[in-house]
């Protein structure tokens, strides 16, 4: 039974993905989980860390893991890129290779604190789909998402690499299950784990847009009126790089909506693509009293 968890927002949730931050914290609070932000966290470096050097790509996340040990034994990380990075680092150190032990020693020296391998990195989608949490969500439903046809999008970093995967790598199901429990209609499509282009969105508009457009077109073809993500980078890319108009929700926003959290309409205001088209369907159903 989780009651208090460490929380690592990462840079995106503090800036461009505030609604993911607010909705994650609010949903967890509503479900009785206390989130404690880890003190003085730093950027985990993600893919750019890797491109500089090996040491850096593990050292930046390791500082966060050490900081997290002061707070709780589970570390919740909503950004899929950060989640993957922290999880991989955790495993690397647990592996106890010679290189890993050397690195650990160096970072401990810089920080003046030991790393005790006490913290487990967890993604909120993993936490919210554990049986006891699903039970709580079901019990707390204020508004079923009936009428909402959505395509769950997992992207890459929730299922790759293998050590970070908490769901089936080719056919993940957890978001599908959660959305269905809340009454949404989940469409079948085969692009769930296809990559959206990630940081190419910033640097190479020409390469990223066709990837995004194909995903949106496929979701539409499958009958979806909205996409649902669990990663701020996917969300920003899908929203900002499509030439069509399809809303892109964070799964936590929909949980918030279903639990009747008052702020949920506030979060949706921050979106670049208006979410109204998808919500109208929902509202219609509600006013019919179903």
């Amino acid at each position, binding site marked *: 039974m989780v009651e208090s968890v460490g929380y690592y927002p990462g*840079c995106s949730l*503090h*800036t*461009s993905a*505030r609604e993911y931050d607010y909705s994650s914290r609010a949903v967890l609070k509503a479900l009785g989980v206390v989130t404690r932000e880890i003190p*003085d*966290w*730093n*950027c985990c*470096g993600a*893919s*750019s*860390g*890797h*491109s*500089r*050097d*090996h*040491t*850096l*790509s593990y*050292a*930046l996340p390791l*500082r966060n893991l050490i900081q997290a040990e002061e707070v709780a034994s589970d570390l919740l990380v909503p950004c899929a890129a950060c989640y993957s990075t922290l999880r991989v680092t955790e495993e690397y150190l647990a592996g106890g290779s*010679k290189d890993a*032990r*050397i*690195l650990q*020693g*160096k*970072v401990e020296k*810089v*920080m003046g604190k030991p790393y005790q391998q006490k913290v487990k990195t967890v993604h909120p989608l993993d936490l919210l789909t554990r049986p006891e949490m699903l039970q709580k969500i079901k019990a707390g439903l204020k508004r079923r998402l009936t009428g909402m046809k959505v395509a769950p999008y997992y992207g*890459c*970093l929730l*299922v*790759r*690499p*293998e050590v970070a995967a908490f769901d089936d*790598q*080719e056919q993940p199901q957890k978001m599908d299950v959660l959305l269905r429990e809340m009454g949404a209609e989940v469409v079948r499509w085969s692009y769930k*784990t*296809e*990559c959206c*282009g*990630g*940081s*190419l969105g*910033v*640097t*190479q*508009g*020409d*390469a990223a847009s066709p*990837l995004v457009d194909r995903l949106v077109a496929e979701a539409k073809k499958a009958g979806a009126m909205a996409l649902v993500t669990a990663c701020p980078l996917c969300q*920003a890319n899908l929203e*900002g790089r499509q030439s069509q108009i399809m809303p892109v929700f964070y799964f936590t926003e929909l949980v918030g909506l279903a639990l009747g959290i008052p702020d949920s309409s506030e979060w949706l205001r*921050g*979106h*670049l693509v208006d979410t109204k088209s998808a919500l109208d369907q929902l509202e219609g159903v509600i006013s019919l009293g179903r």
Partner: protein
Amino acid sequence: MTDFLDYLETESGQPISRCFQCKKCSGGCPVSSYSDIKAHQAVRLGQLGREEELISAPLVWYCIGCKTCQARCPNGIDISAILDVIKGQVLASGGMPGKPLPAFHESFLASVNRHGRVYELGMVIGYKWRVKRWTEDKELGLKMFAKGKLSLLPHRVSGRRQVRELFELHKVRGEING
């Protein structure tokens, strides 16, 4: 075995010599249709020790580390890890100024190094300055700014001295204690 292959295998931790060119990686790679050589060809260049061709291949910078290749490869080869070694080599030698993708990584890391966190607007400006592309993306940028999605002030980590030291760690000689 060539020296270069040896070096690549050690640095990336990937069993490059085990690749039998089945091309499953390229089939799943999202960027292979945009880049010159495909994922399996990069592995082949590594096997053959053709260092210069690999260094100058745009695929190195297009790869987004999605690791679809590794998930599909019968030998579990993570091609992004191989390409990361090349990226590191290029960035360390200060090469390719003004090329969009290296500039992005440099701006990103510069921001982390300076502030401890990514200062988004600073990063975007730094990046645009490095590649001299001010106008492109202005519209999306302005839209995001209006929605409060780009922050103006750097978020600083009070332990940023520590973060800076982490950036220098690769120069420090390590020992195993305990």
